[in-house]
Structure formats: C-alpha cells, structure tokens
C-alpha cells in the first residue's frame, strides 16, 4: 500500500522559473487555485542566469523597430522552422509583457527621455533588449516571485515530479516526492503546465545547473505527448573555459554587444572570415563599422561577432581545431581593447557589464577591463520540446500544457538571444490563461492507485538494490557520450555509437544503488533524474540522426549543407504503443500570406 500526501488544485505548474511563475500569476489572477512545484528553492531557477535582456519590439531606442521586424528576425534566426504563429504572437505580445513587469516593480535601465532602454543583440536588427545591466534574469524572476507570493500561490519548494497521471486520454495530475523528507506527494489537478526548462545536464560542458535534466520533456513524452525539434540544442559560443571548475559558465553575449571582439591566438578577428549568405547584407564590412554599430550608429551594420549563436559557436570550434585557439582550448573575447576608443573604458565596462567583471575577477582572477577572456562553446538551451498549439500552448494530451524552454515552436533551428525571456513571459501567460480555461470546463480526473503504487515502488528501488553502479558515475558517462558524439558537430557513425552507449547506460541506471535514507539524499535524486536524462538523450540523438542536413544549431559533418527536403518539416517524436520511439517528419503548414510578405520585405 503506497503512502503519500494528497493535494488538489485547479492548475498544477511544474517548474518555477520565468515561465512557471508567469503562468501561475495568470491562473491566480483568473481566480484559479494553483500549485507551483519547484525543484529548487523559489527564485533559484535558471532564469536568474539570463544576462542580456528580454527582446520586445518597443522601438524606444530605434523607432524603425516593430513586431514585424521582430517576427522576421525570429523566423530568420530559426531558419524558417519556427511555428510562424508562435513567432507572430510572441513578437506582438512581448512589449505588453515587458511593460507589465514594470507595473509589478521591475526596474529596467532607461533612455535619456526616461523610457525603457534597449540594447543590441545577435540576430536582432534593431536595439531591442530591455535590460538591467547584465542581470536582467534576476530582476525578472524576483519581480515575478515577489508579485506572485501576494496572489496566494501554493509553492512546493524542493519537490520533484517523477510521473504525470492520466485519466484515459486527459491529464489528471502528477506524482512526486519532496527532497527534505523523501515523502511522496499526489498532486491532483484539472490542468497541468510543464515549465521545467532545459536538458543541459545531458552534456558535460553546460551553463545549466543540476536541475536541468529534461524532466518536462521526458514526463510529456512518457505521458504520450509529441516532442518536436529535439535535434536543435543551442551551444552558446561564449562559456568560461578556465579554470576547470568554472568551465561552461556563461559569458553574456552583452560583452559582444558592448563592443567585445573575438580573436584567435594570432590576434586575428576570425569572425570576418566566414559570414553566412543569409546575413551578408546585415553584417559590417569593416572593424570600424562594427564598432560604430555597437556605439549606436544607426547607419552601421553589426559586427560578425553578433551573428547567430550557432554560427559563432562553430567558428570558434573551427579555430580551435585548426590550432589557432587560446592556451586552454578556446578563443579570446576582448572587451578591454575599447580603451583605445573610449576615455573611461574601465569604468564603462564595469557599469555596463558588472556581473561579468565580478564573475571573472572572482572566479578566474582576470580583470576584463585590462585583459581578454578565454571562452569556448557551452551547452545552453534546448530549442526543441513539447509540441504545443501555438495559441493555447496545449500539448497532444488534453489538459497538459507546456511553456518556456520545455516547449517547442518559437525558436525553430536556433534561438536568438533575448527571445527566451520574452518567450517565458508571452507563453507563460498564455499557458496559464488557457490552462485556467481548461480547468473551468473540466473536473478533476480520476487517479489510478495502482499507478501510484508502481511509481512509488520504482522510485524506491535504488535503496533496495545492492548493485555497484553509482548514479553519479552513470550521469558523468552519459555527459561524456553526449558531449563527444552528439555535440556541436555530428555524424552518423558517432551518433549510432551514442545510441548504443545510451542503451548500456539505461541498463546501468536500472542497477544503480544508493546509500543512506530518504532525507535530502542527493544520490537518490540523481538516480531518479537519470530516467529523464536518458530519455531526452536518446530522443536528441535519434532526432539528430533523422535530420540528414545541417541547419541552425544542428550541424552534420556528413551532410554539411542545407537540404530543402528537410527545410519544410519538423522532426516529431512520439512514444509508440510498444514503448518504442517513433519519429516522423511533419511538414510545416504554409505561412499565412501577410506573414509571408513580411518575411519577403525584410530579406
């Protein structure tokens, strides 16, 4: 007989980052009873790490900007694989979502006439990112958190969901445990919103914390929802690489936005050597022009350092492979050089990039106002995720919604910087709104107690085994496999080997044993997370095998060019009737004429 604590809500939100909190606020505002499950403490989610800003075409700095330009930039960045309706909704609604944050207490940097200041960022045609120095994510999550706590949300901190529950074809709730005591909890709800973020922990070098094990992706997949675009993993071009303990930690794109340049060991600005045709007429012709762009010259084109992340990451990898890298296997990112151009450069850098200054000074003993940083690509963001309806964010499973990083559609083959914070707000709100509507029309689904019992039994197995496999070791091995074989540059043989290794690691994960008891036992939590990590790793690998071309963040050594037969479709993954992974290529519906016209105009 299973023992658990039962809770009932209208809407259950799994995840307490930007998307989860924004959804919860929406449910609460509409009068719904809402629970938020947070794997960590409240306010510690990865949103806190976002530095550059939130993209919204407010046109405060350059009035040529509009939702149309933002839409076209997002579609181009996503290599036209994005769900165009989501890209449209996102571009139209982002400005209102940002202004709403201000009404809730967020303070953004200002223009000289007192409006919200916007900065340049990779792939965005005009200065578009509302920001607060380089700690925009902290400002955002704190604003949502502080606003939300006064709305009567039930927050379950340090709880983890192990399975979703269904009543026939619709969602009925979730089952999980609390970290503190290891007790099980049944969360019954009329609607469930997944807002669990990414999958970064599947890779060795990542900017993501321990939480990002693809829980939402895996929960949705096992509940029968379709996942899409899972081959598209974004490697942020600039992560710290030295010393080893900080490897993977993000260095904001804002450094390049403020004039920072990339150089190889010969001091060459190698980004000028490889400019993709899609961006050729938007990229600076000279170093001089690139500098003017970063200083707000509206007639200058952007420097090649601000090309899309996928491209910059591959160029860095190329320099390192060709033996032109920095001493620790990266390249140099130099912002100190601007002292040649600006009188008080050191103060300027400290003011514009305070967290970066602090981060390098404390973690690496480097003064970025005086010397260059060493950087290299780091696993950063998952474009793929739960396939959702563009307007409501509902998945294929009735009553199951997804928003933010764990949902797919907005970013297509590659996400633009700044579009994730706006994604969280726009689609977090929508998921909350539509989940509330669903909850109003439906009653609580029935829960099968046998299912709870088997979930509990499964979760407790690691304590009963006396095997020798260590959960940390299995996780580390998987991270090595994914990093080496399903990383920035991929090819068929290596990915087939990865699948074989994942199969072995699955078997190993069924043998892992843990010491101690159920109270705050990190080994046990790691053992349970392996299930999600292995599920998403296999999905990423299979989707990457399926797409036999190179596009956006997905680069195949054996198919280095784009192939039009893949250009019009998304790779969709579903769990088959016999538990096997079922992949299909699904054609993208033709774009509405008016949107098509915008894309043509902005080419």
């Amino acid at each position: 007989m299973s023992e658990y604590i039962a809770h009932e809500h209208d809407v259950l939100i799994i995840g307490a980052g930007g998307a989860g909190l924004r959804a919860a606020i929406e449910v609460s505002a509409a009068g719904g009873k809402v629970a938020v499950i947070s794997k960590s403490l409240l306010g510690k989610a990865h949103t806190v790490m976002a530095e550059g800003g939130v993209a919204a075409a407010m046109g405060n700095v350059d009035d040529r900007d509009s939702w149309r330009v933002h839409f076209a930039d997002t579609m181009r960045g996503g290599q036209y694989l994005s769900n165009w309706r989501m890209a449209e909704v996102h571009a139209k609604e982002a400005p209102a979502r940002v202004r709403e944050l201000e009404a809730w207490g967020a303070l953004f940097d200002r223009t000289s006439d007192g409006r919200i200041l916007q900065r340049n960022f990779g792939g965005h045609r005009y200065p578009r990112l509302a920001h607060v120095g380089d700690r925009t994510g902290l400002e955002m999550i704190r604003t949502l958190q502080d606003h939300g706590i006064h709305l009567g949300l039930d927050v379950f901190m340090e709880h983890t969901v192990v399975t979703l529950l269904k009543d026939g074809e619709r969602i009925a709730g979730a089952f999980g445990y609390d970290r503190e005591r290891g007790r099980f909890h049944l969360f019954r709800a009329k609607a469930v919103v997944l807002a669990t973020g990414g999958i970064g922990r599947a890779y060795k070098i990542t900017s993501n914390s321990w939480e990002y094990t693809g829980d939402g992706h895996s929960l949705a997949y096992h509940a029968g929802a379709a996942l899409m675009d899972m081959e598209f993993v974004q490697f942020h071009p600039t992560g710290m690489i030295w010393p080893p303990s900080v490897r993977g930690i993000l260095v904001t794109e804002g450094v390049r936005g403020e004039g920072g340049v990339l150089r190889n060991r010969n001091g060459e600005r190698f980004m000028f050597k490889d400019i993709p045709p899609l961006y050729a007429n938007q990229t600076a012709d000279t170093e001089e022009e690139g500098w003017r762009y970063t200083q707000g010259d509206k007639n200058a084109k952007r420097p090649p350092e601000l090309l899309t992340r996928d491209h910059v990451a591959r160029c860095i990898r190329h320099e390192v492979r060709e033996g032109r890298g920095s001493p620790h296997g990266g390249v140099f990112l130099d912002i100190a050089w601007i002292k040649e151009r600006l009188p008080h450069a050191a103060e300027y850098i400290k003011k514009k990039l305070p967290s970066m200054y602090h981060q390098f000074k404390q973690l690496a003993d480097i003064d970025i106002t005086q010397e260059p940083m060493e950087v290299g690509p780091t696993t950063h963001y998952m474009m793929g995720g739960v396939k959702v309806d563009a307007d409501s964010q509902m998945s294929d499973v009735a009553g199951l919604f997804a928003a933010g990083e764990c949902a797919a559609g907005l970013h297509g083959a590659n996400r633009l910087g700044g579009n994730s914070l706006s994604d969280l707000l726009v689609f977090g709100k929508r998921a909350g709104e539509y989940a509330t509507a669903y909850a109003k029309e439906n009653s609580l689904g029935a829960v099968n107690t046998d299912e709870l019992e088997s979930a509990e039994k499964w979760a407790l197995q690691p304590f009963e085994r006396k095997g020798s496999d260590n959960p940390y070791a299995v996780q580390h091995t998987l991270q090595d496999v994914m990093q080496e074989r399903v990383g920035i540059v991929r090819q068929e043989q290596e990915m087939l080997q990865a699948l074989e290794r994942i199969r072995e690691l699955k078997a190993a994960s069924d043998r892992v044993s843990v010491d101690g008891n159920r109270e705050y036992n990190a080994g046990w939590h790691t053992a349970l997370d392996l299930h999600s990590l292995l599920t998403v790793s296999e999905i990423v690998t299979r989707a990457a095998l399926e797409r036999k071309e190179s596009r956006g963040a997905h680069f195949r050594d054996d198919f280095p060019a784009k192939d039009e037969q893949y250009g019009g479709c998304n790779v969709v993954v579903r769990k088959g009737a016999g538990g096997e992974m079922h992949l299909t290529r699904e054609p993208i519906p033709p774009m509405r004429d008016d949107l098509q016209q915008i894309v043509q105009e902005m080419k």
Partner: protein
Amino acid sequence: MVLDAVHQIQAEQAGDLAVRWNCKAGKCGSCSAEINGMPKLMCMTRLNTLPLERPVTVEPMKAFPHMRDLVTDVSWNYGLKKRIPKFQPRQPDASDGTWRIAQEDVERVQEFRKCIECFLCQDVCHVLRDHHMHEQFIGPRFLVYAAALEMHPLDVGDRVESLRKDFGIGLCNITKCCTKVCPENITITDNAIVPLKERVVDRFFDPLSNLFRVFSNSKT
C-alpha cells in the same frame, strides 16, 4: 572552489551528502555555508584562498534550523517576504500606461535589487543568530528588500510604521556584520538600514535625541 570539492566527495565517497547549489557562478545564492567559520558562497570560495595545511571546515548556516548535512531550513525567510507590503506604483506617467524614470533614480535602488537571497546576512546577524529574535526582527535581507521598495522611484506605499512596529528595525545596532558577508557587496547597513532608520526617526522621534542614540550605538 569549495563547492567542487564538496561535489567530488559526494560523487566518490558520500553519495547521500546533502548540499544545495544551482548556478555555480554566484548568481543564485543557493550554496551558502560557513567555511572555516566564515559565511560564504561555496561556489565563489577558492580553495587556494584558504590555509590548506589544516582541514577546511564547511558547516551549514547556524541561524536557521538544520535539515541535513549542509542544508538548512530557510523557509522562515520566504514567509517573511509575504508580510512586507507589496510594491504599489504611482499612476502611469503617459497615456499608454508607461512611466518615465530617470536613470539616476533607477541606479539609486539597483544596489538593493542585486540581492541574490543567499541569506548569509541573516545568518551572521546577532539579533537572529545569537538572540533568536526571528519573531520580532526581519533581518538585514528584508530591510534591504523594504529599502528597495521604499526607495523605488514608482512606489507610493508606506512601510515606515511597519518597519518600526512589526519588523523591528530598532533592534539593529549597526554592527555591519551583514555588510561584511554580502557576496554582492551591497552596503546593507549604510545604504539600506540607516536611511530606513532615519525615516522611522523622522516620523516617530525627536530628531536631536535620536542623533545622539545613533552615535552612541555605532561604537558597539
């Protein structure tokens, strides 16, 4: 970093070791602990800054109930925040519902808004740590939070009376221990607490006699 050492112990020797962490970059405030007796973030404390000829001690924060290993129950902090009256903006300045704010006014409160809620300041505060006055006093973190609201350029709320009556601002005797341990280098005492004390004084006390009190307390 100390956190890497803790992780290595966890992976190789004590699989069930309880520790909180997230960002590893001093931005989330999860991995607070007392390292060789000093309240610090484990992810930002380099081992080579510590004397390694003797064992390094890593202990949980002492001002909160112990849960397990390095993890403490910090839920009291989350409950406190709900008691502080929330942000109340003035009417929008423009017809489109937006406000006009000068950059200087944004910068004035930026310092307080940098707080990562690591609660090290709460941990080191004598009023909480030694005198256990958790009922009467909200601690440095929430005085900074109240200051961020009180000095917010758009806020029209009034928390001055609550600061005195409900939040115990008078219990702070300005020893500045909180300021010393803040990993975000927020000048907690001078920039947040003292100005709030002044507001309380201006409203409730005779200014001259209180000036005397501030000076006599600052010696302790």
